[in-house]
């Protein structure tokens, strides 16, 4: 993991001191809300429906046990005993008081964490594949370059007042994208060129929200030496060209759409040529230094008998292992996904006690590493198979053993109108309703891989456009109403789902989802055909009569 150096520590301490003074000036009346608002947003502090909300960055979703312990401390000391992990690998606290926020930031600073640029019109927290460094299918670990991008973009003087927010994601597994790279302003895939040299493919203009777009290839291969200057050129072109007259048209996806990818590419090349000479190799030196922080852990070499025995004897353990483990690049290791999606509970929430338990397990069995996924779960990226039965038992003791990763109850849901000031409807209770219903039906393992993603407004924090089943909550004439999209895909074959038809009332949405899933079970060619495959084979027309049976009866 990246370790802060003296410069990083001093920078963060100074920034926290600055913000403390800004909060004091707001409280004593020297700053108006209009003056204070951009300052608090630059430091991750929102004012939501019921309270302030502090969004803390977890850069590329990577943290260690001590950092997770501090997240627990914040939840306990300054919040209501829990935190909410988000689709940008961040954590949000829903109930802080304004005067406490500087203390919260100081506590985070103690463990090299912050909330800088988790909001505002800046380059936001860089996200990455949550299996980075451990996945069997990646060509290289994307975390060093994610850290490089984090350092470059943090407090970058040219990019503090962008036309709108700007999000970057990185993955080392292009053929198995787990970071929704193509739905980002800039997506970066680690790729080899024809000569076998490692570099980066740059995707631009992806994004969800009001106008969902899948990103386009801006450049097929950029070398390590040229990466930061190329990224800087891209953001710089957009910074000048991006629309500031209408915030709904300000994101780079609209700029690319309006000007065309060819013109954007030409402008980026031109800008790149102009600024490339100003990058004199320090970025490459820095990258090489950063890389040393991400050496693989000292893997253990012990027999896996304990795992094999538990797998054979304990059906509950076997179900969890089959559902929540992913192949590790080391054959006798596994990647463990801890589900924060217990049936009927709030997706992505963890209590302080659960956070501490996960930190302890990571220290004992996981080389002190944890990850947060954009799917709102927690990952132990490096667990020896021999330790899996013990890990499972400890998870069970903290109610963290839900075996549902990738299944219908592993739902992404934004906070929605239960917390968010922008929301037009609730998301969380819809997720709770769906996961409870399918738990009752005991069907989810038969249904297999199915991603439901729910947003409580058009801004799409819940990624509904790329859910196999997407749900968007709207306010229709003063009543919550939910639109369904089908066929979305968040992977390397990314696709925006299509709207099925009229929306559903709050009490109709769970039954509507149930009808869609029952139709799939009836229509699939066999258990090996996933929901998405069946939907792609048959299309909306075949599903529609199941979704709107009354319309069918009336016809």
């Amino acid at each position, binding site marked *: 993991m990246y370790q802060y150096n003296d410069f990083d520590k001093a920078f963060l301490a100074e920034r926290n001191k600055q913000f403390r003074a800004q909060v004091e000036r707001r409280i004593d009346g020297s700053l108006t809300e209009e003056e204070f608002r951009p300052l608090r947003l630059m430091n991750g502090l929102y*004012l939501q429906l*019921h309270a302030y909300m502090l969004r803390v960055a977890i850069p590329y979703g990577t943290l260690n046990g001590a950092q997770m312990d501090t997240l627990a401390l914040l939840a306990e000391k300054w919040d209501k005993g829990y935190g909410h992990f988000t689709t940008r690998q961040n954590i949000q606290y829903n109930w802080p008081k304004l*005067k406490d926020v500087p203390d919260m930031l100081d506590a985070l600073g103690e463990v090299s964490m912050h909330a800088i640029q988790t909001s505002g019109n800046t380059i936001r927290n860089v996200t990455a594949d949550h299996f980075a460094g451990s996945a069997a299918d990646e060509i290289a670990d994307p975390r060093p370059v994610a850290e490089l991008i984090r350092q470059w973009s943090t407090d970058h003087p040219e990019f503090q007042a962008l036309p709108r927010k700007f999000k970057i994601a990185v993955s080392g597994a292009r053929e198995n994208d787990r970071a929704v790279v193509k739905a980002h302003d800039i997506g970066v895939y680690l790729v080899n060129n024809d000569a076998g040299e490692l570099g980066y493919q740059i995707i631009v203009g992806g994004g969800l929200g009001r106008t969902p777009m899948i990103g386009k290839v801006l450049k097929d291969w950029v070398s390590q030496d040229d990466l930061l200057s190329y990224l800087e050129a891209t953001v710089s072109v957009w910074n000048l060209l991006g629309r500031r007259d209408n915030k709904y048209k300000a994101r780079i996806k609209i700029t690319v759409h309006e000007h065309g990818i060819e013109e954007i590419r030409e402008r980026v090349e031109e800008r790149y040529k102009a600024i490339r000479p100003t990058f004199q190799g320090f970025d490459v030196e820095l990258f090489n230094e950063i890389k040393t922080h991400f050496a693989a852990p000292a893997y253990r070499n012990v027999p896996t008998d304990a795992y094999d025995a538990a797998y054979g004897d304990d059906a509950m353990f076997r179900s969890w292992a089959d559902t929540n483990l992913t192949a590790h690049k080391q054959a006798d290791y596994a990647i463990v996904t801890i589900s924060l999606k217990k049936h009927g509970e*709030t997706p992505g929430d963890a209590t302080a006690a659960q956070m501490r338990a996960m930190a302890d397990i990571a220290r004992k069995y996981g080389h002190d590493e944890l990850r947060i996924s954009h799917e709102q779960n927690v990952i132990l990226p490096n667990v020896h198979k021999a330790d899996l039965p013990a890990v499972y038992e400890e998870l069970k003791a903290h109610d963290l053993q839900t075996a549902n990763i990738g299944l219908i109850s592993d739902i992404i849901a934004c906070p929605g109108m239960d917390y968010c000031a922008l929301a037009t409807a609730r998301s969380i209770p819809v997720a709770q309703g769906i996961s409870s219903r399918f738990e009752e039906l005991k069907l989810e393992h038969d249904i297999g891989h199915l991603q439901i993603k729910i947003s409580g407004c058009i801004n799409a924090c819940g990624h509904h456009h790329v859910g196999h089943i997407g749900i968007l909550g709207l306010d229709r004439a003063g009543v919550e109403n939910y639109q369904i999209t089908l066929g979305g895909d968040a992977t390397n074959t990314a696709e925006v789902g299509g709207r099925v038809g009229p929306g559903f009332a709050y009490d109709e949405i769970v039954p509507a989802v149930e009808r869609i899933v029952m139709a799939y079970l009836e229509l699939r060619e066999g258990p090996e055909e996933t929901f998405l495959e069946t939907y792609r084979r048959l299309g909306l027309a075949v599903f529609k009569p199941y979704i709107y049976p009354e319309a069918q009866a009336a016809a």
Partner: protein
Amino acid sequence: MPRAFTPKVITANHLLEGDVIYMTDAGAWTRNLAEAALLTDEADADLRLIEAQQQKDVTVGAYLADAKAGDDGRPEPTHFREEFRRTGPSNYFHGKQAEA
């Protein structure tokens, strides 16, 4: 034809606590919607909103929210957003519902 004025309450978030507050008849602040002033005169509502927005050491984002008189004559929300603001989230027993 301009739309007829419908009853309103003045609401905001509290600067320090961040929670939802409402203006009372006396121009003070309460955390309980039932104690808020239900404003039926547009000119009066606009003037009081300006007063609320000027109290920068207390309020953030003051606005006029639609409300109606309940059976007891006290204000009640007409929209679900205001219902959540006066109650708290639906996934946990937190916020105003827990403080009442």
